[in-house]
């Protein structure tokens, strides 16, 4: 293979394409969509995070400003955890608008994460959302197909392919030249998007929370470069194996519709069909049922709680709970909280297991559908996938548990038992000592672990693409 020949062929394809009408219309459309998604993505990120930061601050302030009171009242006063957006959510919205944003954290109860954008939206949300990643995942692939469907097929129809080969250019040079040309053309769109994105990543780089975003950014860039390489290879292959350019176009459009629109949605729907999710009320009934089996805190004669009481009396060598060296109410609530949280989390894990099964069908389809691979990888790296949301939810629940148990501990240590002398409230200084809710994003190494399948699939597709091109290099038909 001669480098300069490949380079020449690639350049030829680019200049031809850039002069074409499709490219003209596409560029105008892309510039509009790009500006729009940059504007709306940034505005959304910026405004939402500002609001959320402010409210999280307010929440902490009002927590600290509570006067002296009984610690259990503070356990009910509780706190809120507000989800913060990752800077790369400007790039890929992912599930951002479909998961909740705020959760009330109080003793005894796991609340749902509420106020997702979806719950406040009209049915239009289901048409999808415009984001930079959406342009790269959905629109640019279509453009690659538009720009590349004719490459080899039309040259053959016109007879110019025969001429090229006659002039001593090898088939391999033609195939790889065209491929590189189409690929570089697609990278034009890619780099435009990523240069704009770089700007945002740099702006937010002072934020320690976003410290890993430059790394995530580079991985995203590499993945998309690879993805476009794969798409270009597919285009060249389809074009070469089609009799006419028209045939190639129809096939490529079919591939696009199938892989980008129909298959992902159908697989998700089938996953849902195969593994039905329980409703909240069903799960809560099950949780309550399990809890009562272990010990019913409402029942004064419950054997579970009676056994705890007896053993604690025995261990401290006293006859009545009032004589215990710590507050018995706080002690029992701490036990109850630990028990109910454990049971709840077990059920929640089962629920997530169902979700995982539902999603796996689509996830594994990455091996037949490169779009799925890039989609999952892109949302995960942008901090807008389900795992990132669960990470937030996990953090919030851990904070809730810590808050409740800390208040129980304060009650045990500082509040006298019923009938004993002593203050029924404690100093507000204790509220200040309890650290605020702080959120950090999922570790990037974890993201890699979660997305191992997508990475593997994308890599395999890359290899497959090159192998396909190599094979084509040997048996490309000139006429």
């Amino acid at each position: 293979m001669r480098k300069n020949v490949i380079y020449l062929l690639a350049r030829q394809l680019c200049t031809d394409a850039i002069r074409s009408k499709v490219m003209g219309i596409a560029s105008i459309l892309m510039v509009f969509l790009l500006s729009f998604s940059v504007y709306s993505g940034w505005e959304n990120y910026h405004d939402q995070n500002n609001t959320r930061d402010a409210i999280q601050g307010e929440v902490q302030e009002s927590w600290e400003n509570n006067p002296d009171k009984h610690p259990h009242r503070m356990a009910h006063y509780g706190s809120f955890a507000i989800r913060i957006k990752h800077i790369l959510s400007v790039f890929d919205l992912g599930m951002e608008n479909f998961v909740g944003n705020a959760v009330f954290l109080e003793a005894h109860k796991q609340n749902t994460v509420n106020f997702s954008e979806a719950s406040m939206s009209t049915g239009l949300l289901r048409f999808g959302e415009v984001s930079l990643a959406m342009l790269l995942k959905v629109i640019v692939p279509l453009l690659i197909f538009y720009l590349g469907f004719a490459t080899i097929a039309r040259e053959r129809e016109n007879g110019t392919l025969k001429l090229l080969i006659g002039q001593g250019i090898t088939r391999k040079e033609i195939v790889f030249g065209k491929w590189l040309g189409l690929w570089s053309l697609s990278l034009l769109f890619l780099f435009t998007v990523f240069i704009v994105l770089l700007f945002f990543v740099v702006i937010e780089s002072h934020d320690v929370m976003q410290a890993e975003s430059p790394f995530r950014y580079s991985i995203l860039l590499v993945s998309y470069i690879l993805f476009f390489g794969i798409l270009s290879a597919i285009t060249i292959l389809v074009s070469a194996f089609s009799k006419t350019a028209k045939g190639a176009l129809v096939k490529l459009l079919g591939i696009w519709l199938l892989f980008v629109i129909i298959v992902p949605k159908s697989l998700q729907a089938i996953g849902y069909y195969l593994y039905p999710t329980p409703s909240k009320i069903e799960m809560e009934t099950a949780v309550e049922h399990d809890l009562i089996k272990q010990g019913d805190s409402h029942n004064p004669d419950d054997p579970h709680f009676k056994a705890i009481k007896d053993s604690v009396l025995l261990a401290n060598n006293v006859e009545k709970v009032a004589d215990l060296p710590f507050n018995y109410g706080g002690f029992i609530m701490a036990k109850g909280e630990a028990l109910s949280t454990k049971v709840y989390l077990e059920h929640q894990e089962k629920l997530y297991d169902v979700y995982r099964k539902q999603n796996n069908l689509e996830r594994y389809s990455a091996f037949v559908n490169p779009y799925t691979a890039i989609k999952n990888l892109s949302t995960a790296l942008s901090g807008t996938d389900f795992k990132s949301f669960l990470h937030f939810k996990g953090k919030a629940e851990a904070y809730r548990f810590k808050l409740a148990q800390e208040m129980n501990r304060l009650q045990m240590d500082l509040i006298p038992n019923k009938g004993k002398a002593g203050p029924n409230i404690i100093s507000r200084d204790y509220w200040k000592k309890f650290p605020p809710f702080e959120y950090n994003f999922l570790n990037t190494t974890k993201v890699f672990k979660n997305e191992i399948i997508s990475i593997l699939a994308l890599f395999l597709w890359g290899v497959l693409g090159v192998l396909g091109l190599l094979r084509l290099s040997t048996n490309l038909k000139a006429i």
Partner: protein
Amino acid sequence: MYKLLFKSFFRTKIFLVSLVLLITVGTVSILIGKQYLVKQEKTIVAAQEFQKESVKRILKYNDKDIGLLLYYLKFTLVKKPANISAISIGQSDVNPLLQAVTIRGLEGQKYDTDFENPSLLMSGNLDLGFVIIYLFPLVLIAMTFNLYSEEKELGTWRILAAQTSKKGKFLFNKLIVRILFVFAIFVFLMFLASGILQIPMNQNFWAIFFHSLLYLLFWSALCLFTVSLLKNSSFNALALISIWVVLTILFPAVVNNYVINKYQVPEALDAMVEQRDGYHEKWDLEKNATMTDFYEAYPQFNHYPVPEDRFSWIWYYGMQHMGDLAAKETSAEMMEKITLRNTISEKVALFVPTMHAQLSFNNLAGTDMVSHLSFLKALTQFHEQLRLNFYPRIFDRKPANSVNWEKHDTKFYIAEYNFSWIYLMLPTFFITIVITFFGLFNLRKL
């Protein structure tokens, strides 16, 4: 002539592919709708059982103190599902079907969500509405994009042109054959859906039916217009798919992004904090701080005394109500904004048949935003009724068995539907007529 046209159409590959694709995906979408209905039914049964069980259990240990009993007890209001919602699931997967609330502050309970896999929410439901809005146009495009160009490219056009003087009419008839075929599949699927999902053939069903037909006509008109430009197959395929992408993906998505950004709802989070603080701060204030406002809201209770030195239920539930009052304004603003989002979207949708179809389907199926907002309104009334019913019993310290608990089972809210045929049909009808006119005008020159 039609007979021959049908015959030749039935022999094409695209005919078979379309038939299999639409029937399969259509049936799958109906089955998904069925599963959605079954899940709703199961949820309702679970809620009913939950209600009965919890009344029994909580009553067992708290029959002395009705105030404490009602602290725990939840009452369920269900939005009665209509089977037609299975055709267009809309926003009903995001918004809960039912809400179980205690008589404590409502704001903190009103917006609780149900569990749903966010991946599914994101990809959206594969309901019959989706098949109609997305797939049917694709099939129409696939069958018609080379209506003329294929004949031209294969060389049969010249033979044909020599045999008939009405070439335009011939093309038009060819198109009609394909449209009729698509209509036939659509009608079949609608009746299948009506049978499997047991949808009553009421006004809403027919509204969806005729709107869908009109929507398909709109796409047929677009295809006719593109064909009438007499360009080659590649151009037609490219143009039609691009139009499809713009109308079903880009344009609605842009409008949605715009609406979401333009009308952000920070009030949601504000109201949530206001409610909590409005309630909790009252614990640290004089009892009067609560009772003055409570008596003002409900003067019928102002003869109940509030002991200054100890806990009383009237004070407690008064404080709870203060939380709701504190958030009332912000909460109302939030509702207004959400309604505004809906109004703007609907207005824009009048000019874009895809968006208009989606929003109308959701509206007719009772799965749109407005329907959920009216459920929330009903929930607020339900909550107030419960409170006003229980307050005197709590304040009088009536025994728990003075209440007929059997009566407090799960309650249903029946949504009201209203729509106007003109609003539903006219915009898309008008657009279709205009496009058809230009298409036929072009064909005349043939």
